[in-house]
C-alpha cells in the first residue's frame, strides 16, 4: 500500500511540465505547420490530404532558411557566444574570490550583493541603464563636468550597449554555479597540491579548474541559451536598430501577425539549442549531474 502511493507526489510537477511546457510546445508545433491568414490567425485547410502531400506544411520551415534571415541567426549566435565568454571571464574570478579568498562569515554578504539585483524586474534594470548611458545620462554628465570630454560619448543605442546589457543581466547566472562548484572543493586537495610543490597557477590549472568544470558547463549553458533568445535588451538598449532572432520571432507574433512562421523559427531555434545540449551531454555528460 505505502509503496504505491508515492507516485501521487509526482503529479504536481508532472502537471506543471505537461500544462506549462509540453502542451504549449505541441500547440506551437501544430501552428508552425499552418499558413498565416490575411488578418492574422490561420488560413483554413481545405483539403487535408492535398495539404499534406503537396508539402505546403513545410513552407514555414523552408522560409526559416531564407537568405534574408541567415545573417540575423549568425549575429545572434555571435552575440550570445561573446556574452557567454565575457561573462565567464568576469564571473570566474568573482566566484573564485568569494569562494576561496573571502572570510567565511562574509561570504553570505557577497552572495547577497550578487543576488539582490535579481529582486528587481529585469525590464526596470534595463531602463536604469538607459538613464546611465544616454547623452545626458550619469556617465556623460560626469565626464563632461570634469572636462575629460567636450561632447557626450555615444554609449547608448549601439552594439556596445546591447552587449553591456546582456552581460549585466546574465552575469549572476555565471557566477552562482561556478561558486557552487568552487565551494565544494575539498581544501585539503589544494593544500596537497601546494605541499607537493605546485605553485598557485599550477594548482589552479591542475586541481581547481578541472574540479570546477561542471560549474563552468552549467554557467555557460544557462547564460548562452537565454542570451540567444533575448529581445528586450536589443530593443531598449540597442534602439531597436538591429534585429536578433528573439526580435524576429517577437515581430512575427505582434507586428507581422504571422504566428505560423514565428512558431517555425522558435521551433528551429529550440531544436538548435537541444542539439547543442546533446553534444554537451555526449562530451561532458557525467559531469553535469553535480548541479
Amino acid at each position, binding site marked *: 500500500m505505502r509503496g504505491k*502511493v508515492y507516485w*501521487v507526489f509526482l*503529479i504536481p510537477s508532472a502537471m506543471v511540465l505537461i500544462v506549462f511546457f509540453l502542451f504549449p510546445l505541441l500547440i506551437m508545433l501544430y501552428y508552425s505547420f499552418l499558413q*498565416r491568414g*490575411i*488578418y*492574422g*490567425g490561420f488560413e483554413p485547410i481545405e483539403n487535408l490530404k492535398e495539404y499534406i502531400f503537396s508539402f505546403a506544411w513545410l513552407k514555414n520551415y523552408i522560409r526559416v532558411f531564407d537568405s*534574408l*534571415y541567415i*545573417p*540575423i541567426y549568425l*549575429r545572434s549566435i555571435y552575440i550570445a557566444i561573446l556574452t557567454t565568454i565575457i561573462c565567464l571571464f568576469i564571473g570566474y574570478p568573482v566566484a573564485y574570490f568569494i569562494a576561496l579568498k573571502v572570510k567565511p562569515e562574509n561570504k553570505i554578504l557577497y552572495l547577497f550583493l550578487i543576488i539582490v539585483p535579481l529582486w528587481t524586474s529585469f525590464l526596470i534594470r534595463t531602463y536604469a541603464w538607459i538613464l546611465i548611458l*544616454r*547623452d*545626458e545620462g550619469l556617465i556623460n554628465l560626469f565626464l563632461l563636468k570634469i572636462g575629460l570630454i567636450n561632447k557626450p560619448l*555615444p554609449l*547608448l*543605442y549601439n552594439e556596445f550597449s546591447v552587449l553591456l546589457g546582456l552581460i549585466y543581466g546574465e552575469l549572476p547566472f555565471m557566477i552562482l554555479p561556478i561558486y557552487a562548484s568552487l565551494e565544494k572543493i575539498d581544501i585539503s586537495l589544494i593544500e596537497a597540491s601546494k605541499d607537493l610543490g605546485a605553485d598557485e597557477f599550477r594548482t589552479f590549472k591542475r586541481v581547481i579548474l578541472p574540479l570546477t568544470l561542471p560549474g563552468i558547463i552549467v554557467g555557460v549553458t544557462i547564460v548562452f541559451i537565454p542570451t540567444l533568445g533575448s529581445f528586450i535588451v536589443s*530593443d531598449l538598449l540597442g*534602439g*531597436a*536598430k*538591429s*534585429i536578433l532572432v528573439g*526580435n*524576429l520571432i517577437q*515581430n*512575427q*507574433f*505582434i*507586428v*507581422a*501577425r*504571422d504566428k505560423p512562421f514565428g512558431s517555425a523559427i522558435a521551433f528551429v531555434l529550440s531544436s538548435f539549442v537541444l542539439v547543442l545540449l546533446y553534444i554537451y551531454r555526449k562530451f561532458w555528460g557525467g559531469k553535469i549531474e553535480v548541479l
Partner: protein
Amino acid sequence: MKVRFLTIVLFSIFTLIFNSCSRSKNEVNVYVWSDYLSQDVIEEFEKETGIKVNLDTYDSNEALLEKLQTGVSKYDVVVPSDYMVQILIRQNLLHEIDKAKIPNLKHINPRFLNLQYDPENKFSVPFFWGTTGFAYRKDKVGKLPETWSVLFDEKYKGKILMLDDMRECFAVALKLLGHSINETDTSILLKAKEILANQKKLVKQYNSSGFDQAILSGDVWIAHGWSGQLVKIAESDSNIVYVLPKEGGTLWIDNLAIPKSADNIENAHIFINFLLKPEISARVSEFSGYATVNETAKKFINQKYLTKQRYPDEEALKNFELMQDLGTVTKLLDRFWTEIKSQ
C-alpha cells in the same frame, strides 16, 4: 486514505481557482490604452451607476487583436483605432452597438462618423483623434521647414528618432514619394524601403513608447511620433515644436467598441454613453493629451488646450489619411522591415 486526502486537496485548489475566475454581475471590464482614463473619471462612473469598473491596459492595437482573437479574456469595452476596427469587424469580433442606448452620440462631430472603416458606425463610436508628425528642438536645430525631409537630413545624423512601427515608418517614406500611406504597389513599396534603409544610419533609435522622453531629455533633436504625447511636451517646453508635415501623414481615430465575447453588454453601453458625456470627454481629453471628437465637449475644455496643435484645421490636415489594413501586403512590408532592421 492518502490518495483520497490528496484528491480532496487538489479538488479544492481547482475549485478555488475557478471560483476566483467568475466575477460578480454588476460590473464592466474595460480594456484601454495606457494613460487614457484617469482614476477620478472611473470613480465618478462607479458612484453614479453603481457598476464596478475593472480596468486593464494595452499599448498597441496588435496586442488588443491578439487578446480578442484568443477569445479567452472577457472584455466589455475596448478602444481600437480605425484600421483595427476594420480588422475586428472582418474577423467578426465586435458586437453591434445599440445606438438607442447611446444618446450622447449626438455630440460627436459628424466629420468623424460613417468613415470607411465602419461605414454606418454599427460597431464603433469615435472617441479621440490625432495625427502622426514630428517634433524638433528649436534650441538645437533652429527653425525647421514643415517637411518630412528633415528626418532624412545628414546634418542631424545620430539625433533622429523614428517610431518603431513598420506602418508609420513606411507612411513617412510613401508620403515623401507623393503616394498614399496605404499604397500596395510593390515597386513603390520597394522605393519606400530604400529610402528607409538609407535613413537608418542617421537614426539614433527606433522607439514607439519613449519618443517624447527622448526629445525632452535632449537625447535626440528630431522625433517622429504621435500627436498626443508630442503636443503635451511642446506645451510644457517652449523649445519643442510639433510639426504636421506638408506632405501629409497618418490621421488616426480611436474608437469605443464592444467585443463579441462581452458578458456585460448592457453595462458596456452605459459606460460608452458616460464617456461621451461632454464634461467627461473634456476631462479625459485634457488628461490624455488627445483631441476629442466630441464637439460639445470643447465648451468644457480649458481654453489653453484648444490650440491649433491639438485641433489642426482642415487646411493643415489636407494630405493626412486614415490607415487601412493592407491584408497580405503586410507580409511583404514585414519582409522589407526585417531587411531594413537587419542590414
